[in-house]
């Protein structure tokens, strides 16, 4: 059953069609890859799903319900969250605080509980802290927990982005180039982490990457975009050998 | 509640007599405050040279309040309890003069406002007199009424326009009573326009006034804005007799707008040709190199009033001085001052009408009137 559906989605910037008539359907529980040359419109698709951009045309459904008119924060409440290609952490907060903040959905207490320090507040905070510890463990951020996000090296910032997104306990995770800035070894570690969280949190993942090792080893299905249009769609095997994909994206001997 | 039950004991002078002053040495009122404190320091030095009061030397404790009302209260709390002054002169705004009331009532130290013209400086909302608040200046109603009376009676003008500063109570008060009096006597207010403190452009209001074609334009505010108004009236070709209150006279007014103000009138407390005034002017000029502002004259009179009260009181104790102040009578340089025990306002002060001719403020006549209620 498909969890996320894009139907005939188009986004134009002035005269430029960044995304044109794209149909995409992501199966629940799968890991779906989104690849394509630079400027093909991949990030734009993420921005459309999370309603940071308004689609020029088309509809987006999540679990059968239309979401293209919901504001961003309600989309994440519905269960979709993402990471950013241009890292956007809470720069002056520590790793721990970044994650703890993102956990907020998981505690149900209101302003009055907080002010009066009721039992509900204390229990809620306990839950949040436990969630947070768990994520720090999984993403191996223990040594970084008290470092301000802006001072983390690039690779850790990426990992923290993922941790923060997973902290929402979403149903679907959109990852925008999570391995950028990582070396092959680290990329493999990341692959393991993504697999682990996908399993543990029962996630659907939509991932943009240029590291083919990662994509080919991770994804169940892959969609390739070029100039905003769908160039190909299929299993990793099919994509790897697709002549148009090789020509436009992978390059001869690229892999 | 900090209201005195049995009445405060007040401060008694020790080896020296300490007089507090609160006023603006900084902030946008500093021109006026500085003149007050200069004047008082000059008078204190002079009195000390002459042997002091009742054989005791005087000491002035001046505190700046930036023209910010609440700072006047803090300053008064300090002067009355830490510096043990026997009286406070100032401050130079109504807001500041009202704000210090709780402090002077708690400690029983009189405060004599120099230019706090708002009625509420000395009486409460329900008309009861405040035991420790006094003033030496006119209150608003009087000046406004005098200007209206003079314009109507003496100058024979019937159509008046008013431009006023709606953000200061002085200007609002004058306007209110000018209007009341002028209409009561049979005149007509053909235009009434407003601006806010800090504005520098009045041309639009003046253009509207010009359209209404008045015979006299009443400008009840201070010389800086008066000068700008007069010049801008000239700019847009509005030629009409202008009239104002005691906010006008200043050397600066003449510097800025002498040409635009020829033949115009203002209500004042004093005649600049009066020997007492001329003496003080010269003395101040010699000491500070510039002419005094109106505030200097009023500080001068506040000092005289205080001196009379100290002499009258049995002990140099602030509560006794406050009592004595209620009935004091002195010839000040702004006129004859008799304190009214029921209101703590000076009564019987004449108003002088002055006209600007050439470089001079030319005395026209004394003029008094019974304002309409």
């Amino acid at each position, binding site marked *: 059953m498909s969890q996320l559906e894009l139907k005939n989605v188009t986004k134009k910037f002035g005269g430029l069609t960044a995304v044109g008539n794209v149909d995409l359907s992501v199966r629940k529980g799968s890991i779906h890859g989104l690849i394509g040359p630079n400027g093909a419109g991949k*990030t734009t698709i*993420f*921005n459309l799903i999370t309603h*940071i*951009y308004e689609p020029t045309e088309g509809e987006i459904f999540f679990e059968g319900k239309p979401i293209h008119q919901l504001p961003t924060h309600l989309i994440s409440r519905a269960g979709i969250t993402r990471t*950013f290609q*241009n890292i*956007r952490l809470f720069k002056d907060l520590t790793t721990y605080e970044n994650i703890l903040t993102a956990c907020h959905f998981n505690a149900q207490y209101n302003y009055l509980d907080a002010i009066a320090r009721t039992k509900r507040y204390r229990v809620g905070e306990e839950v949040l802290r436990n969630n947070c510890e768990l994520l720090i463990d999984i993403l191996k951020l223990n040594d970084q927990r008290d470092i301000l996000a802006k001072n983390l090296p690039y690779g850790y910032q990426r990992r923290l982005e993922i941790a923060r997104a997973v902290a929402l306990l979403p149903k679907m995770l959109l990852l925008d180039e999570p391995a950028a800035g990582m070396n092959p070894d680290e990329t493999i570690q990341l692959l393991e982490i993504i697999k682990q969280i996908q399993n543990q949190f029962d996630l659907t993942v939509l991932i943009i990457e240029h590291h083919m090792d990662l994509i080919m080893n991770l994804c169940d299905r892959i969609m390739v975009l070029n100039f905003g249009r769908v160039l190909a769609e299929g299993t990793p095997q099919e994509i790897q050998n697709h002549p148009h994909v090789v020509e436009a994206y992978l390059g001869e001997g690229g892999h | 509640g900090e209201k005195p039950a049995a009445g405060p004991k007040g401060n008694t002078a020790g080896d020296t007599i300490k007089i507090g002053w609160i006023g603006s*040495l*900084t*902030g*946008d009122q*500093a*021109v006026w*405050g*500085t003149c007050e404190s200069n004047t008082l320091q000059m008078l204190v030095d002079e009195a000390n040279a002459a042997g002091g009061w009742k054989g005791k030397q005087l000491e002035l404790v001046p505190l700046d309040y930036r023209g910010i009302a609440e700072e006047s209260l803090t300053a008064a709390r300090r002067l009355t309890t830490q510096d043990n002054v026997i009286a406070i002169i100032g401050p130079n705004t109504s807001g500041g003069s009202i704000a210090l009331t709780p402090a002077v009532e708690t400690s029983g130290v009189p405060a004599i406002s120099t230019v706090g013209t708002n009625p509420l400086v000395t009486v409460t909302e329900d008309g009861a007199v405040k035991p420790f608040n006094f003033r030496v200046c006119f209150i608003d109603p009087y000046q406004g009424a005098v200007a209206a009376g003079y314009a109507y009676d003496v100058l024979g003008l019937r159509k008046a326009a008013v431009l006023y500063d*709606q953000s200061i109570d002085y200007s609002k008060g004058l306007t209110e009573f000018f209007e009341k009096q002028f209409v009561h006597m049979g005149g007509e207010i053909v235009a009434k*326009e*407003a*601006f*806010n403190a*800090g*504005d*520098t*452009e009045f*041309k*639009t*209001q003046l*253009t*509207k006034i010009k*359209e209404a074609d008045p015979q006299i334009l009443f400008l009840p505010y201070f010389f*800086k804005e008066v*000068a*700008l108004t007069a*010049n801008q009236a*000239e*700019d*847009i*070709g509005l030629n009409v007799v202008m009239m104002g209150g005691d906010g006008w006279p200043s050397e*600066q007014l003449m*510097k*800025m707008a002498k040409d635009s103000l020829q033949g115009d009138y203002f209500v004042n407390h004093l005649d600049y040709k009066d020997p007492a005034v001329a003496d003080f002017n010269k003395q101040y000029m010699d000491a500070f190199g*510039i002419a005094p502002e109106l505030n200097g004259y009023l500080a001068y009179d506040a000092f005289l009033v205080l001196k009379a009260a100290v002499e009258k009181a049995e002990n140099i104790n602030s509560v006794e001085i406050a009592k004595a102040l209620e009935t004091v009578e002195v010839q000040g340089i702004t006129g004859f001052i008799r304190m009214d025990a029921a209101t703590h306002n000076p009564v019987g002060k004449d108003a002088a009408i002055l006209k600007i001719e050439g470089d001079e403020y030319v005395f026209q006549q004394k003029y008094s009137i019974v304002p309409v209620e």
Partner: protein
Amino acid sequence: MNVTFFIQVLINGIAIGSVYALMAVGYSLVYSIMSFSNFAHGGVIMLGAYIGYYSGALFGLPIWAAILAAMLGCGLIAITIERAAYNPLRKRNAPPLYYIISAMGTSILLENLIVATIGPNFKTYPPLFTERSIEIGKIAIGKLDLLMLVISAVSLFLLVFLIDKTKIGMAIRATAYNLRASSLMGVNPDTVIFIVFGLGGAMAGVAGVLFGMRYVVYPQIGIITNKAFVGAVFGGLGSLPGAIIGSVLLGIIEVMASAYWSSNLQNLIAFVLLIFVLIVRPSGIMGVSTEDKA
């Protein structure tokens, strides 16, 4: 009310708007580069008025020379302020809020420095023109107003040319976006900041002298720049033409409110309108939205 009245009021509005404009340009220039509201600008304008006054009164300089002296003096003052109050913050990558507080401290300092040294008294420029206005039929136009409008327009043109068309202008824009990146291109950020503050200060100098000539000089005249800030926001922060258009518009709105509604409400209407303009156009009239790409 008739047409001449309307025209006269319009002229009054443009006149006061050009006062705001002259002040807003220097402020907007610094804003466009440093992205912070330089609340010390009013203080520098005030000093400009004093420099103009003293060079006229003490050294008997003609008016154009007094303006030049004020431009030079204020340029140096602005650069000094930058060195003393902002540069140390820049070195530590402090957020804009801190600059604003430092600027406020500076403006308190400048105002009170004048009170403490020169004193709080008013200073009056000698009249520049014997005939203060040109009369066309029943309508009068102040000569000084005209001069201010011309000076605002000319300085706008020169500044826009400098920023948009020259190489140093490009470097200024690049530095505005990212100081570190532009220094990695070989731009000396100190030079750029010197130029920007120097020009901003020089503009404050002109504004100060003309303000002083038109009105009167005292330590608190910097206050009036609040209106200029409002004008700049009206027009769109950081846009130089916006600063001028916004300021003139603000002037016109003020006088129109006063002429056709009530002078009691003139300022109130101006501020309320400001809020509504921002609701309709959140980046002012000429401003560009700065929403960055996700």
